[in-house]
């Protein structure tokens, strides 16, 4: 279902053609990074730390180097040690430990050998002498003075006075407005709580993989699965100390990323092994390695206090957020601060966030990073306010809903946004208007995510037969090639399947930032449209030349040139490309831009659950999500993003968590014990696409990839409360925790 505010109707945009890359994917021909085989190829294997925190005293590779089939062995000493102020220093130290290992699974050495088994056996034969150090796994414990220190050079930034001693707190972020004391003083209702979440993994089904082939000329070619091959190039160059011009990165099909493939893990290791061995090297992670050494998203401790008047207006918000970053600091607490009350107009607030390092894998982005945990806290408390005031939870949210011109808590004024429309869409939905079934509980929640623009490039070439090739630098992680083709079809006026959308390597297309921040269809789509508009100007010029008339007398519409005086029969695009050789040569255009004006994304969701009071198992009985897409270029894949985000949020809310033992060893590094949702856990996910077009995009695109994961955490917590009276403030809401909450009579 789609609810459109007002936008033009289009011929191709908004239709649902079969995606161009689909056929290869249903017949098993699509080529992912692990599918590539090169002549003479070796296999790489990484030796990882068994300790959560230890000093590396010695690494003896001599036995490994003499083993059968072994062609190269590398350690951290084989890479340049970047200076302390280099922004990629932590990345390089994550890919290969130096001096200390900081988490269980931290890479220590790597081997290339003729077979996978030889590589693994040799890696295991490397003798590492460790001096085990005390470790810290818990955010609050890690923040305490005297906690085991991961780094001796972290001095907390953002404090009122500069600290003299290092700590595990990398920074403090603060957002403040109004008078918080007065805000709470004017409140009739005050609610507060502490909310706890665990690290969880992006859980893409394809493990990280790459093949590197380094030649004697000092250049290398990398085939890999990533969300952005230009970043693979720059990060690989940084770790090797190479100039980027020596590195070509060819994007393979990517088997899921969700933010987890916006950084690298394997590529510089494969390049260095390949350089030493003189042969191509393939590296493929096991699932166990994916869990232990990549991702995850942070665990968090979030305390929120909200005040509201008796008629439901939120007067004050106080939030304290601590996010664990894993072994190196990230930006997670800052992002959490920026999101924590953003779906609400609040005049008085104090928000402070702390970025904390712990002895766990270094966190990576995961779909609207940091926003879901923050929403879990705020939207649970908003539900409590609604109950205390006996207000409808949608009405309460509508009363406090920001719109264009209001100032967002993190600074700027909101542009045109569709939160109100999403709230109204849920309020008016058949789901919300029907009472939940007997015994079921209902919860609603809303969520916000920024979306971003960044740099994109596109090249559009017209072929002699009137078809077009659209080359972009954005890896397609969920159907974006089809969206590029639809926008090009709309511009050029030719059939969407006369367009071949291609993801080009780092040497055939201009620089393009990572596919992240829901940006590909927005920003790269803008570049495609700009190139197509350039081409339409060229096509008019060619038609003028064919007709021997002024270009001003040629119009381009519906895929053909028409003469304003009607003196010539219209020329279809194919008529012009067929004559291109005689009118000036091939037709092609390139656009590179830095996209501004990404449209903020909002989603509002409602769910009905049942709770088994003997086991504590929660069953999602019904789920509806409304999301502002701006304009849905390919509605199937917009719905797909909405549904996928919701189900990841359901997994996060109900099942998923990293479990570490007392030594800091992950106890559930596999899909059997780290349980992501399966088909039999779920109902259909009903979707309402709301279209409030983004005025900054030629077709109104906002970006749809991320925000859907934000509301499920609080929506399910609110639904469980509605069903059981138990208010659960810790994730996951797995059967033992739900059962304990029910049995303790934890009502609110």
């Amino acid at each position, binding site marked *: 279902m789609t609810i459109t505010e007002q936008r033009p109707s289009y011929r191709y945009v908004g239709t*649902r053609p*079969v*995606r161009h*890359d*689909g*056929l290869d*994917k*249903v*017949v*098993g*021909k*699509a*080529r*992912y990074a*692990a*599918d590539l*085989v090169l002549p003479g190829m070796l296999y790489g294997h990484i030796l990882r730390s068994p300790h959560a925190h230890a000093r590396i005293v010695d690494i003896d590779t001599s036995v490994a180097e003499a083993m059968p089939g072994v062609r190269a062995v590398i350690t951290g000493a084989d890479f340049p040690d970047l200076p302390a102020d280099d922004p990629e220093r932590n990345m390089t130290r994550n890919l290969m430990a130096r001096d200390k290992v900081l988490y269980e699974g931290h890479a220590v050495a790597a081997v290339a050998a003729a077979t996978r*088994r030889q590589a693994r056996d040799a890696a295991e034969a490397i003798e590492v002498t460790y001096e085990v150090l005390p470790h810290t796994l818990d955010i609050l414990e890690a923040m305490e003075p005297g906690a085991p220190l991961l780094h001796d050079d972290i001095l907390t930034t953002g404090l009122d006075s500069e600290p003299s001693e290092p700590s595990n707190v990398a920074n403090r972020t603060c957002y403040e407005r109004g008078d918080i004391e007065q805000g709470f003083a004017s409140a009739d209702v005050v609610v507060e709580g502490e909310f706890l979440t665990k690290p969880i993994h*992006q*859980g*893409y*089904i*394809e*493990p990280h993989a790459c093949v590197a082939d380094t030649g004697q000329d000092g250049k290398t070619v990398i085939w890999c699965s990533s969300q952005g091959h230009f970043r693979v190039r720059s990060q690989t160059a940084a770790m090797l100390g190479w100039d980027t011009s020596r590195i070509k990165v060819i994007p393979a*099909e*990517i*088997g*899921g*990323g*969700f933010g987890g493939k916006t950084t690298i893990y394997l590529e510089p290791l494969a390049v260095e092994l390949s350089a030493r061995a003189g042969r191509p090297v393939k590296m*493929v992670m*096991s*699932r166990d390695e994916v869990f232990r050494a990549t991702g995850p998203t942070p665990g968090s401790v979030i305390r929120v206090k909200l005040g509201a008047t008796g008629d439901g207006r939120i007067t004050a918000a106080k939030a304290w957020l601590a996010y664990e970053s894993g072994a190196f600091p990230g930006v997670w607490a800052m992002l959490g601060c920026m999101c924590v009350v953003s779906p609400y107009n609040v005049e008085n607030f104090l928000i402070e966030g702390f970025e904390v390092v712990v002895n766990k894998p270094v966190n990576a982005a995961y779909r609207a990073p940091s926003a879901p945990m923050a929403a879990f806290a705020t939207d649970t408390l908003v539900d409590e306010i609604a109950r205390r005031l006996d207000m409808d939870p949608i009405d309460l949210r509508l009363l406090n809903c920001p719109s264009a011109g209001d100032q967002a808590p993190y600074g700027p004024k909101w542009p045109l946004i569709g939160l109100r429309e999403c709230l109204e869409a849920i309020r008016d939905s058949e789901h919300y208007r029907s009472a939940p079934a007997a015994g079921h509980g209902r919860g609603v929640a809303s969520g916000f995510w920024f979306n971003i623009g960044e740099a994109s490039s596109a090249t559009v070439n017209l072929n002699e037969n009137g078809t077009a090739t659209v080359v972009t630098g954005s890896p397609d*992680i*969920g*159907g974006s090639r089809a969206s590029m083709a639809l926008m090009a079809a709309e511009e050029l006026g030719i059939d969407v399947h006369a367009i071949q959308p291609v993801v080009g390597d780092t040497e055939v297309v201009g620089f393009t930032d990572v596919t992240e921040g829901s940006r590909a269809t927005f920003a790269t789509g803008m570049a495609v449209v700009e190139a197509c508009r350039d081409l339409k100007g060229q096509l008019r010029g060619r038609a003028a030349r064919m007709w021997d008339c002024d270009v001003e007398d040629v119009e381009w519409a519906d895929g053909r040139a028409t003469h304003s005086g009607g003196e010539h029969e219209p020329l279809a695009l194919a008529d012009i490309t067929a004559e291109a050789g005689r009118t000036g040569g091939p037709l092609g255009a390139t656009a590179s831009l830095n996209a501004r004006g990404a449209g903020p994304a909002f989603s509002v969701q409602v769910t009905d659950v049942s709770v088994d009071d003997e086991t504590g198992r929660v069953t999602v009985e019904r789920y509806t999500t409304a999301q502002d897409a701006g304009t849905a270029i390919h509605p*199937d*894949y917009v*719905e*797909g993003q909405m*549904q*996928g*985000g*919701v*189900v*990841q949020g359901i997994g996060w809310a109900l099942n998923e968590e990293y479990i570490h033992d007392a030594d800091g060893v992950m106890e559930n590094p*596999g*899909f*059997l014990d780290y349980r*992501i*949702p*399966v*088909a*039999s*856990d*779920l109902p*259909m*996910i009903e979707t309402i696409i709301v279209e409030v077009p983004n005025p900054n995009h030629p077709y109104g695109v906002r970006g749809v990839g991320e925000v859907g994961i934000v509301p499920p955490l609080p929506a399910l917590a609110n639904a469980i409360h509605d069903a059981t009276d138990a208010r659960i403030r810790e994730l996951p809401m797995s059967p033992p925790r739900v059962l304990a909450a029910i049995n303790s009579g934890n009502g609110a």
Partner: protein
Amino acid sequence: MSRTHVSCNINGDDVEFLCDAGESLLDALRDEMRLMGAKEGCGTGDCGACSILMDGRLQCSCLIFAPEADGAAIVTVEGIADGDHLHPLQQCFLEGAALQCGVCTPGFLVAAKALLDRNPDPTETEVRYALAGNLCRCTGYDKIIRSVLAAADRMKEEVAG
């Protein structure tokens, strides 16, 4: 180490290959036969991306030793279509947008074929349980389930028509 000789039928072709005794059938399909359709998502039988049919039974090829395939008839995703004529499941997956990244798709198609081969008229719940051994992180399963049900309808129409 001497290698083991295996003779079997894969997607209708009688084939032979050599493998290590401890090699998985998944590795043999990919490394020895260069059939890259079946994927390794976990290597422990939890994700279903490596699903194949072995003598008509749905299996995780990562849990089978390659020598066990001797004498067996194996179907991988590459063998589901009839030449250029896609299987209704493949066609419905395309039309129903049942894939995003596509890496789990081969396993889902094989598992769904195993279901429809034995139950041509499944309910939504039966489809959900039949596919519960296949993990998809992109789609939330909604469009996959709908596409399998659509394929079942299409196959019934083909039989009736």
